[in-house]
Structure formats: structure tokens, C-alpha cells
């Protein structure tokens, strides 16, 4: 099974990094790393390392990069006519699904981790005083949250791509879903009682980063399990081809 997942991941990576169409992929990657690794840390300064609300960036920005990567997973194969041949191979359903999710996760998570050292350069470039750096705890929090949000984005993207007739359709649906998921908590916050709202905002701004990270990680673990399970349930060879 692991070998099969690795085979699919290998193929996905080769496609992602193939010379053909590399320019548009690189542009997206450069924009992503530029935003998360340079622009935002430079704007925020030293707080970027320790403020609990900064964790929201490490969660949300990778999901936006995921839009371009996962839309292609099944909708792209369907559009280009490669899906039938792939499904006719001996690969188990779960290996195809896991391989595609793994490729998207490693790509986006890798780009996120690349932004970490860049963010230190940006912060130290702007701020005066002692050298700013991540503690091992901060580093593992960023890496873990980015990984969990990448899995969330990949599973959601693959789920959308499974049923989309074209890549464009998948991208639009996924973007809309991400937007709703982003806007919903903001509006939801307004509906909460004033005391709860204030408590939440205070926790995000002045709270203990480790505790906030734990809550976020717990939420994303649940979401990841739900989405991956939903993707496995919806992955049916016959239905994929018929669509």
C-alpha cells in the first residue's frame, strides 16, 4: 500500500514540477512564499514569532495555495482523459486517493516550511535589537498547524475535484468553499454574546500561544479525519468514470 501511495505521489510531483507549465506553477509558489515568508512577517515584525493570531496565517495561507494544486487531481485527469487509464490499473482506490492527497500536502507544506526561515530574514531585516528566532516549540507549532491545515485543504480540494467535470469548475468550487469557511467564523463571531466575543479576541491577541495552538490543532484534526473519510467514501471507480 505504501509503495502504491508513493507511486502516485511520484507521478503527481513529476507533473507539478514538469517543465511544461512550470512557469505558472512557479509563479504561484513565488507569490505564496513571498506573501507568507517575506511580506506578512515584514509587516508584522517581531510579533510574527509569538502572537497567537499569527497562527491563523500559517493555517489559512497554505489553503489558498492548495486551490491550484488540488483542483487538478481528479478533474484535471478527467479533463485530459487520463483518469480511465489510471483507474484501470491495479492501484487500490485508497492508494490513488492517498497518493494524490500526499502529493498536494507535501508540496504545500514544503512551501510553507520554506517560508519559515525567510520570515526570520524579513523580521530581522526590519526589527532592531537582538536576533529574532523561533524557539523549538514555536517551530513545531507552526509546522504542525501548517501540516494539519494542508491536509484539510488537500482533502477538501480532492473531494471537490472528485466530482468536478473540469479543473476550472473545481477551482471555483474550492475557492468558494474556502471563502465561506473563512468568512463564516468572522460573521459567526459577531453573533456571539459580547463577553464570549471579547474573551475569544483576547485569547487570540494576548492569550497563551500554546493553548490556542492546541485548540486549533484539535479542531483541524477532527476536520481532517472527517474530510479524508468523506473523500474515501465518495471515491468510487465506476461513478468517477461515469461522471
Amino acid at each position, binding site marked *: 500500500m505504501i*509503495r502504491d501511495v508513493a507511486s502516485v505521489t*511520484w507521478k503527481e510531483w513529476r507533473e507539478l514540477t514538469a*517543465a511544461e507549465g512550470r512557469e505558472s506553477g512557479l509563479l504561484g509558489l513565488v507569490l505564496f512564499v513571498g506573501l507568507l515568508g517575506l511580506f506578512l512577517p515584514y509587516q508584522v515584525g517581531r510579533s510574527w514569532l509569538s502572537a497567537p493570531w499569527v497562527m491563523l496565517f500559517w493555517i489559512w495561507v497554505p489553503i489558498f495555495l492548495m486551490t491550484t494544486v488540488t483542483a487538478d487531481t481528479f478533474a484535471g485527469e478527467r479533463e485530459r482523459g487520463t483518469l480511465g*487509464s489510471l483507474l484501470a*490499473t*491495479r492501484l487500490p482506490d485508497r492508494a490513488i486517493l492517498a497518493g494524490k492527497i500526499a502529493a498536494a500536502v507535501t508540496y504545500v507544506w514544503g512551501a510553507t516550511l520554506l517560508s519559515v526561515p525567510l520570515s526570520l530574514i524579513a523580521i530581522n531585516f526590519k526589527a532592531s535589537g537582538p536576533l529574532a528566532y523561533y524557539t523549538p516549540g514555536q517551530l513545531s507549532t507552526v509546522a504542525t498547524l501548517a501540516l494539519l491545515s494542508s491536509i484539510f485543504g488537500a482533502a477538501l480540494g480532492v473531494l471537490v475535484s472528485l466530482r468536478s467535470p473540469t479543473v476550472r469548475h473545481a477551482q471555483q468550487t474550492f475557492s468558494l468553499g474556502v471563502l465561506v469557511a473563512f468568512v463564516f467564523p468572522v460573521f459567526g463571531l459577531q453573533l456571539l454574546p459580547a463577553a464570549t466575543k471579547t474573551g475569544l479576541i483576547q485569547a487570540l491577541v494576548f492569550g497563551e500561544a500554546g493553548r490556542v495552538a492546541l485548540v486549533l490543532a484539535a479542531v483541524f484534526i477532527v476536520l481532517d479525519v472527517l474530510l479524508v473519510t468523506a473523500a474515501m467514501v465518495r471515491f468510487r471507480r465506476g461513478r468517477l468514470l461515469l461522471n
Partner: protein
Amino acid sequence: MHRKGPVAYSSCNSALAMTQYAIQTQELTREYSTVRALDRLSLEIPAGSIFGFLGSNGAGKTTTIHLLLGLLRPTAGQAIVLGYDVSTEIDEVRRRTGALLDNAGLYARLGVQDNLEFYGRIWHMPRRERRARSEELLRQFGLWDRRKEPAGRLSFGMKRKLAIARALFHRPDLVFLDEPTAGLDPVSAESLRRSLVELVAQEGVTVFLTTHNVPEAGKVCDQIGILRSGQLLASGSPEELRASAGSNRIVVRGSGFTEEAFTLLALRPEVESAETRGGTLYLCLEPGSSAAPIISLLAGCGVQMEEVVRETTFEDAFLSVLGAEGHQPEPARVARGRFGVVRADEAFALNVPEREGHNLFAGVA
């Protein structure tokens, strides 16, 4: 390559069936809402043979392949592929088969060799074997020099070749080829057919191919099934289908084709045309006519006959099957009694290089 005759249907679950037949289907049916794409298909395809599924677009050929690969579930019936039930043991089937579906399914952004590499990885082939196999196949199909190029830059014909190479890459016991030469120019199609036949002969693989190219099926296949509107109209070897179709074309090789013989032939009502070319007499008889009185007539005129052949092209057989099922072929435009004129429908037949026949009468004086 084994060449086997038709065999009677036996139990799908018998141990014998597992070794003797690559594919067995029994009453295999697939319906899409109101349309019955495949209607009670019962087939037996001997292992090691090339089986051709002939039929026009929408006849049910691709649906059959999808059913045999477990990409679709049958509405009714059963299919056994390489001894495994498609409904319950599809993983075993996919492990032992390769497929070129209606779309070549190549990864355009991946290199030519990487397309094969991926399939080698899928089938857990060791790295060294993958390299050796890809070189062997790419050289065989004339793609070795372009192995680094993205597959998307290949010509249409080269893509089909690469897709066939990919289907054969892991040395499957059975390979499904859905219209492998569709859209190719005649030269590329012939080259691909030759490569395919050579490979099949070398590797002893069973081939299930679909086509609507009648001459192609007649040339390449050991066994043929003719499908229309989801129903199997006929099956057998090309020779058997030709024989069952009968023929109205007689070829007489010999000497002494005198004016008297031609005059007497012209008086026979069943003779539609006659001409000689290089010591051979070509006769067209009315459909259903017996050749025996004509042979006696020629013998009576002193014609020295070395060989008499009743010739049928595979197209004749194909059209005959379709015609017998209610789709009459276009009636041949015949200049009745105008001797020395080639029948109008021979222009169609002449497109077929293969003109095998049944030797009715050899060495008759």
C-alpha cells in the same frame, strides 16, 4: 501465438476454464437508464489469441472493455477474466491486465519514458527492469530517441504507440486495446499493427481489441466477434466468418480460356461478369449460385484448370453478417453480362490486401 478454433461455452467456474480461456462472459448485460448498451453477451476467448471486437460506434465495444476491467458494474450476467470473477476479484484481474482505453490516457507533461516509468512503479517492477523494459519497448515502437520529450509533444500516432507500449509494459497476461489504430494514417496504422503483432507473438499475451476497421480485424485477429447495438451477431476466426458468408467470386487459374469458353459463359444466366488477367479467369456469379456447373462448362471447353478458388474478402463476410441481421449492405452495382468489366464493388474489395479464399477445386483438368 496460439490459433484456436471456436469452442463451446462451458461453465465459467470450471478449473479448465481458468487455463483455457482468457475471457469468458455469460449473458453479460449493461444498461444505462433506458439504453441497453450490452445485451446478454456470451463469449469465450482462448488464452494467447488476438480477439477483435468489430462494430460501429456505439455498438457496445468500449462498454464491454469497461465491464471486463471492473470500471462499470454489469446490470446482469457474469464475466470471468483470466479465471477471476470480475464482480468479486477485480483486483486480481487488474493485476494481470493492461489497457489502452478509448483515450490514450498519457500524461502530457511527463516525459515519454516517465509515462512508462510510472506504470512500472504501479506494477512494482524493480528499477533496473523498468529501465530495460522501457528501452526495449521504446526502441520497438521507434520512440527511443524522443524518450526525454514530454508526451504531449508527440504526434497522434506516436502517442498511440506509447500508450500501447504502456499497456504492455508490465508484461500482462491480457491486454485490452480500444481502437488502437483509430485516427491514424494508413502507414502509421500498418506500422503499429505490425509492431503489435510482433510483440504479441514474442510475449504470448492475449489481446482483446476493439475496432470498426474491418480489414484490420481480418488481418490481425485470430478470433473475431461482430457486435451491433450491444448484441453479438457472430463470432469465429476470420476464415470461419468468410466461409460462413459464402462468396460469388470465383478465381480460376489455368490456361486455354478460349473465345468459345467466354461465349458459353455469357449464355449462363448466373454469370454476371468474367475477365482474364495474366492467365487467371475472374468470374462473378449471382449470389447463391453454384460454381460446379461453371467448372464443368470450362472443363468441357478444354480449359486447363490448375486451381479454382471461391474468394471472399473479410468485408464480404462482415457485411454478410450485418445483412443477415436485417442491415442489408449497399447492393453492388453490377454491369450484368458485360464481360471484361470489373464489378463496381471490387473497388472496395481491392482496398483489402489480404484476399484469402477457400480452395474448392485444385488441379482440375
